Protein backbone atom coordinates (compact mmCIF):
# COMPACT_ATOMS: atom_id res chain seq x y z
CA UNK A 1 0.00 0.00 0.00
CA UNK A 2 2.70 2.46 0.87
CA UNK A 3 4.95 2.07 -2.14
CA UNK A 4 3.73 3.80 -5.26
CA UNK A 5 2.86 1.34 -7.99
CA UNK A 6 5.09 1.69 -11.02
CA UNK A 7 2.27 2.55 -13.38
CA UNK A 8 1.30 5.47 -11.18
CA UNK A 9 4.86 6.76 -11.22
CA UNK A 10 4.80 6.63 -15.01
CA UNK A 11 1.47 8.45 -15.01
CA UNK A 12 2.93 11.12 -12.74
CA UNK A 13 5.78 11.80 -15.14
CA UNK A 14 3.47 11.72 -18.13
CA UNK A 15 1.18 14.26 -16.46
CA UNK A 16 4.03 16.60 -15.64
CA UNK A 17 5.35 16.49 -19.19
CA UNK A 18 1.91 17.08 -20.68
CA UNK A 19 1.33 19.94 -18.31
CA UNK A 20 4.62 21.59 -19.21
CA UNK A 21 3.89 21.29 -22.91
CA UNK A 22 0.39 22.68 -22.39
CA UNK A 23 1.79 25.71 -20.58
CA UNK A 24 4.20 26.36 -23.44
CA UNK A 25 1.39 26.09 -25.96
CA UNK A 26 -0.82 28.46 -24.02
CA UNK A 27 1.75 31.18 -23.60
CA UNK A 28 3.83 30.89 -26.76
CA UNK A 29 2.05 28.91 -29.42
CA UNK A 30 -1.50 30.23 -29.29
CA UNK A 31 -1.87 33.62 -30.85
CA UNK A 32 -2.80 36.76 -29.01
CA UNK A 33 -6.51 37.34 -29.24
CA UNK A 34 -7.44 40.42 -31.20
CA UNK A 35 -9.82 42.13 -28.84
CA UNK A 36 -9.35 41.16 -25.23
CA UNK A 37 -5.62 40.57 -25.35
CA UNK A 38 -3.58 38.43 -23.01
CA UNK A 39 -6.35 37.57 -20.57
CA UNK A 40 -7.96 35.37 -23.19
CA UNK A 41 -5.19 32.84 -22.54
CA UNK A 42 -6.89 32.07 -19.25
CA UNK A 43 -9.65 30.45 -21.30
CA UNK A 44 -7.64 27.32 -22.11
CA UNK A 45 -7.06 26.20 -18.55
CA UNK A 46 -10.33 27.72 -17.30
CA UNK A 47 -12.36 25.39 -19.51
CA UNK A 48 -9.98 22.50 -18.83
CA UNK A 49 -10.58 22.78 -15.09
CA UNK A 50 -14.33 22.84 -15.73
CA UNK A 51 -13.87 19.68 -17.76
CA UNK A 52 -12.09 18.03 -14.83
CA UNK A 53 -14.90 19.17 -12.57
CA UNK A 54 -17.44 17.49 -14.79
CA UNK A 55 -15.40 14.28 -15.02
CA UNK A 56 -15.20 14.20 -11.24
CA UNK A 57 -18.93 14.66 -10.92
CA UNK A 58 -19.55 11.81 -13.35
CA UNK A 59 -17.14 9.50 -11.56
CA UNK A 60 -18.76 10.31 -8.22
CA UNK A 61 -22.20 9.44 -9.54
CA UNK A 62 -21.02 6.19 -11.12
CA UNK A 63 -19.13 5.25 -7.95
CA UNK A 64 -22.35 5.95 -6.05
CA UNK A 65 -24.35 3.59 -8.23
CA UNK A 66 -21.73 0.85 -7.96
CA UNK A 67 -21.51 1.26 -4.19
CA UNK A 68 -25.27 0.88 -3.80
CA UNK A 69 -25.22 -2.21 -5.96
CA UNK A 70 -22.14 -3.90 -4.51
CA UNK A 71 -21.72 -2.46 -1.00
CA UNK A 72 -17.94 -2.54 -1.26
CA UNK A 73 -16.29 0.23 0.73
CA UNK A 74 -13.71 0.98 -1.95
CA UNK A 75 -16.39 2.56 -4.15
CA UNK A 76 -17.21 5.01 -1.41
CA UNK A 77 -13.54 5.97 -1.32
CA UNK A 78 -13.62 6.52 -5.09
CA UNK A 79 -16.76 8.63 -4.84
CA UNK A 80 -15.40 10.84 -2.11
CA UNK A 81 -12.09 11.29 -3.93
CA UNK A 82 -13.93 12.30 -7.11
CA UNK A 83 -16.09 14.82 -5.24
CA UNK A 84 -13.09 16.41 -3.59
CA UNK A 85 -11.16 16.82 -6.83
CA UNK A 86 -14.22 18.12 -8.64
CA UNK A 87 -14.86 20.62 -5.87
CA UNK A 88 -11.31 22.01 -6.07
CA UNK A 89 -11.32 22.23 -9.84
CA UNK A 90 -14.74 23.83 -10.16
CA UNK A 91 -13.54 26.38 -7.65
CA UNK A 92 -10.62 27.17 -9.94
CA UNK A 93 -13.08 27.38 -12.85
CA UNK A 94 -15.28 29.86 -11.08
CA UNK A 95 -12.51 32.16 -9.86
CA UNK A 96 -10.58 32.10 -13.13
CA UNK A 97 -13.83 32.68 -14.97
CA UNK A 98 -14.51 35.72 -12.85
CA UNK A 99 -11.02 37.10 -13.44
CA UNK A 100 -11.45 36.59 -17.17
CA UNK A 101 -14.88 38.16 -17.18
CA UNK A 102 -13.77 41.40 -15.60
CA UNK A 103 -11.66 42.86 -18.41
CA UNK A 104 -13.48 40.98 -21.16
CA UNK A 105 -17.05 41.89 -20.29
CA UNK A 106 -16.62 44.62 -17.70
CA UNK A 107 -18.11 42.74 -14.79
CA UNK A 108 -16.76 40.38 -12.11
CA UNK A 109 -19.73 38.13 -12.39
CA UNK A 110 -21.93 37.21 -15.31
CA UNK A 111 -24.97 35.15 -14.48
CA UNK A 112 -23.99 33.05 -17.44
CA UNK A 113 -25.43 29.50 -17.37
CA UNK A 114 -22.05 27.80 -17.16
CA UNK A 115 -20.60 29.82 -14.29
CA UNK A 116 -23.89 29.78 -12.42
CA UNK A 117 -24.26 26.03 -12.81
CA UNK A 118 -20.67 25.50 -11.64
CA UNK A 119 -21.52 27.46 -8.52
CA UNK A 120 -24.61 25.39 -7.92
CA UNK A 121 -22.51 22.23 -8.25
CA UNK A 122 -20.22 23.60 -5.54
CA UNK A 123 -23.29 24.02 -3.36
CA UNK A 124 -24.29 20.43 -4.08
CA UNK A 125 -20.81 19.38 -2.94
CA UNK A 126 -21.06 21.48 0.19
CA UNK A 127 -24.34 19.76 0.95
CA UNK A 128 -22.71 16.38 0.24
CA UNK A 129 -19.93 17.10 2.71
CA UNK A 130 -22.31 18.36 5.38
CA UNK A 131 -24.47 15.30 4.90
CA UNK A 132 -21.52 12.98 5.41
CA UNK A 133 -20.31 14.96 8.38
CA UNK A 134 -23.62 14.45 10.15
CA UNK A 135 -23.48 10.66 10.02
CA UNK A 136 -21.50 8.43 12.34
CA UNK A 137 -22.11 5.00 10.86
CA UNK A 138 -19.68 4.50 7.94
CA UNK A 139 -22.04 2.34 5.93
CA UNK A 140 -24.91 4.80 6.20
CA UNK A 141 -22.54 7.65 5.40
CA UNK A 142 -21.43 5.87 2.25
CA UNK A 143 -25.00 5.00 1.24
CA UNK A 144 -26.34 8.50 1.74
CA UNK A 145 -23.33 10.02 0.01
CA UNK A 146 -23.90 7.73 -2.95
CA UNK A 147 -27.60 8.62 -3.15
CA UNK A 148 -26.93 12.34 -2.98
CA UNK A 149 -24.16 12.17 -5.57
CA UNK A 150 -26.56 10.39 -7.94
CA UNK A 151 -29.38 12.87 -7.31
CA UNK A 152 -27.02 15.79 -7.78
CA UNK A 153 -25.66 14.42 -11.01
CA UNK A 154 -29.14 14.03 -12.46
CA UNK A 155 -30.38 17.44 -11.39
CA UNK A 156 -27.42 19.49 -12.60
CA UNK A 157 -28.01 19.08 -16.36
CA UNK A 158 -31.64 20.05 -15.79
CA UNK A 159 -30.43 23.03 -13.78
CA UNK A 160 -28.10 24.05 -16.59
CA UNK A 161 -30.91 23.77 -19.14
CA UNK A 162 -33.30 25.80 -17.06
CA UNK A 163 -30.75 28.57 -16.51
CA UNK A 164 -29.88 28.66 -20.20
CA UNK A 165 -33.55 28.90 -21.10
CA UNK A 166 -33.93 31.61 -18.50
CA UNK A 167 -30.90 33.46 -19.82
CA UNK A 168 -32.27 33.43 -23.33
CA UNK A 169 -35.49 35.04 -22.24
CA UNK A 170 -33.58 37.80 -20.47
CA UNK A 171 -30.94 38.32 -23.15
CA UNK A 172 -32.43 37.57 -26.53
CA UNK A 173 -29.97 37.37 -29.40
CA UNK A 174 -27.66 40.32 -29.04
CA UNK A 175 -25.48 41.41 -31.91
CA UNK A 176 -21.80 41.28 -31.11
CA UNK A 177 -21.06 41.46 -27.42
CA UNK A 178 -20.62 38.73 -24.88
CA UNK A 179 -22.25 38.05 -21.52
CA UNK A 180 -21.38 34.46 -22.33
CA UNK A 181 -18.17 32.58 -22.80
CA UNK A 182 -16.14 31.66 -25.83
CA UNK A 183 -17.18 34.81 -27.57
CA UNK A 184 -14.25 35.02 -29.87
CA UNK A 185 -13.21 33.25 -33.00
CA UNK A 186 -10.63 30.52 -32.53
CA UNK A 187 -7.80 30.09 -34.95
CA UNK A 188 -6.41 26.65 -35.70
CA UNK A 189 -3.53 27.08 -33.27
CA UNK A 190 -5.91 28.21 -30.55
CA UNK A 191 -8.09 25.16 -31.20
CA UNK A 192 -5.07 22.88 -30.98
CA UNK A 193 -3.99 24.47 -27.73
CA UNK A 194 -7.51 24.12 -26.40
CA UNK A 195 -7.83 20.43 -27.29
CA UNK A 196 -4.36 19.69 -25.93
CA UNK A 197 -5.27 21.40 -22.66
CA UNK A 198 -8.38 19.27 -22.37
CA UNK A 199 -6.34 16.15 -22.97
CA UNK A 200 -3.68 17.19 -20.47
CA UNK A 201 -6.20 17.85 -17.76
CA UNK A 202 -7.99 14.57 -18.42
CA UNK A 203 -4.74 12.71 -17.78
CA UNK A 204 -4.13 14.96 -14.79
CA UNK A 205 -7.55 14.06 -13.44
CA UNK A 206 -6.83 10.34 -13.69
CA UNK A 207 -3.50 10.78 -11.92
CA UNK A 208 -4.95 12.91 -9.13
CA UNK A 209 -7.89 10.56 -8.70
CA UNK A 210 -5.60 7.58 -8.32
CA UNK A 211 -3.47 9.40 -5.73
CA UNK A 212 -6.55 10.59 -3.85
CA UNK A 213 -8.05 7.08 -3.81
CA UNK A 214 -4.82 5.75 -2.35
CA UNK A 215 -4.99 8.46 0.27
CA UNK A 216 -8.58 7.51 1.06
CA UNK A 217 -7.68 3.83 1.40
CA UNK A 218 -4.82 4.75 3.72
CA UNK A 219 -7.24 6.77 5.84
CA UNK A 220 -9.64 3.83 6.01
CA UNK A 221 -6.80 1.57 7.07
CA UNK A 222 -5.73 3.94 9.83
CA UNK A 223 -9.30 4.34 10.99
CA UNK A 224 -10.05 0.63 11.21
CA UNK A 225 -6.76 0.01 12.99
CA UNK A 226 -7.57 2.77 15.45
CA UNK A 227 -10.96 1.21 16.12
CA UNK A 228 -9.44 -2.20 16.59
CA UNK A 229 -6.94 -0.95 19.13
CA UNK A 230 -9.35 1.12 21.18
CA UNK A 231 -11.54 -1.89 21.78
Amino acid at each position, binding site marked *: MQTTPRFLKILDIFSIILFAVAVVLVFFYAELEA*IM*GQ*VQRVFYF*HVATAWVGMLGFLVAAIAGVVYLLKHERKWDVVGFAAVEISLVFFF*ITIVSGSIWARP*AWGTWWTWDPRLTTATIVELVYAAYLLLRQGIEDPDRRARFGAVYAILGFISVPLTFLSIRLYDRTIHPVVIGNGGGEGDFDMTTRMMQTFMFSLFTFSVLFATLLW*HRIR*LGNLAEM*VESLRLKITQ
Partner: protein
Amino acid sequence: MLLNLILKEGPIETTNYMIAGYAVIFGVMAIYLVSMYLRRRNLQRDLEVLEELENKPQ
Protein backbone atom coordinates in the same frame (compact mmCIF):
# COMPACT_ATOMS: atom_id res chain seq x y z
CA MET B 1 -14.65 47.11 -27.13
CA LEU B 2 -16.64 47.57 -30.31
CA LEU B 3 -14.93 50.91 -30.54
CA ASN B 4 -11.57 49.15 -30.41
CA LEU B 5 -12.53 47.06 -33.37
CA ILE B 6 -13.62 50.11 -35.29
CA LEU B 7 -10.54 52.13 -34.53
CA LYS B 8 -8.32 49.04 -35.11
CA GLU B 9 -6.03 49.99 -32.23
CA GLY B 10 -5.26 46.40 -31.33
CA PRO B 11 -6.17 44.40 -28.25
CA ILE B 12 -6.61 45.97 -24.83
CA GLU B 13 -3.90 45.59 -22.24
CA THR B 14 -4.99 42.77 -19.98
CA THR B 15 -1.76 41.05 -19.05
CA ASN B 16 -2.29 41.68 -15.34
CA TYR B 17 -5.59 39.84 -15.41
CA MET B 18 -3.97 36.94 -17.19
CA ILE B 19 -1.31 36.76 -14.51
CA ALA B 20 -3.95 36.89 -11.81
CA GLY B 21 -5.94 34.16 -13.53
CA TYR B 22 -2.98 31.85 -13.85
CA ALA B 23 -1.84 32.62 -10.34
CA VAL B 24 -5.18 31.27 -9.14
CA ILE B 25 -5.06 28.24 -11.42
CA PHE B 26 -1.51 27.22 -10.54
CA GLY B 27 -1.81 28.36 -6.95
CA VAL B 28 -4.92 26.42 -6.02
CA MET B 29 -3.67 23.31 -7.80
CA ALA B 30 -0.39 23.58 -5.91
CA ILE B 31 -2.18 24.04 -2.60
CA TYR B 32 -4.25 20.95 -3.31
CA LEU B 33 -1.19 18.87 -4.13
CA VAL B 34 0.55 20.04 -0.97
CA SER B 35 -2.57 19.24 1.05
CA MET B 36 -2.65 15.70 -0.31
CA TYR B 37 1.03 15.27 0.42
CA LEU B 38 0.68 16.52 4.00
CA ARG B 39 -2.35 14.34 4.67
CA ARG B 40 -0.51 11.30 3.36
CA ARG B 41 2.49 12.04 5.56
CA ASN B 42 0.35 12.47 8.67
CA LEU B 43 -1.60 9.31 8.00
CA GLN B 44 1.56 7.31 7.47
CA ARG B 45 2.87 8.58 10.76
CA ASP B 46 -0.39 7.63 12.46
CA LEU B 47 -0.17 4.21 10.88
CA GLU B 48 3.32 3.64 12.26
CA VAL B 49 2.25 4.65 15.76
CA LEU B 50 -0.83 2.46 15.63
CA GLU B 51 1.08 -0.53 14.31
CA GLU B 52 3.53 -0.16 17.19
CA LEU B 53 0.67 -0.04 19.67
CA GLU B 54 -0.89 -3.08 18.10
CA ASN B 55 2.28 -5.14 18.40
CA LYS B 56 3.09 -3.97 21.91
CA PRO B 57 1.91 -6.42 24.56
CA GLN B 58 -1.06 -4.99 26.47
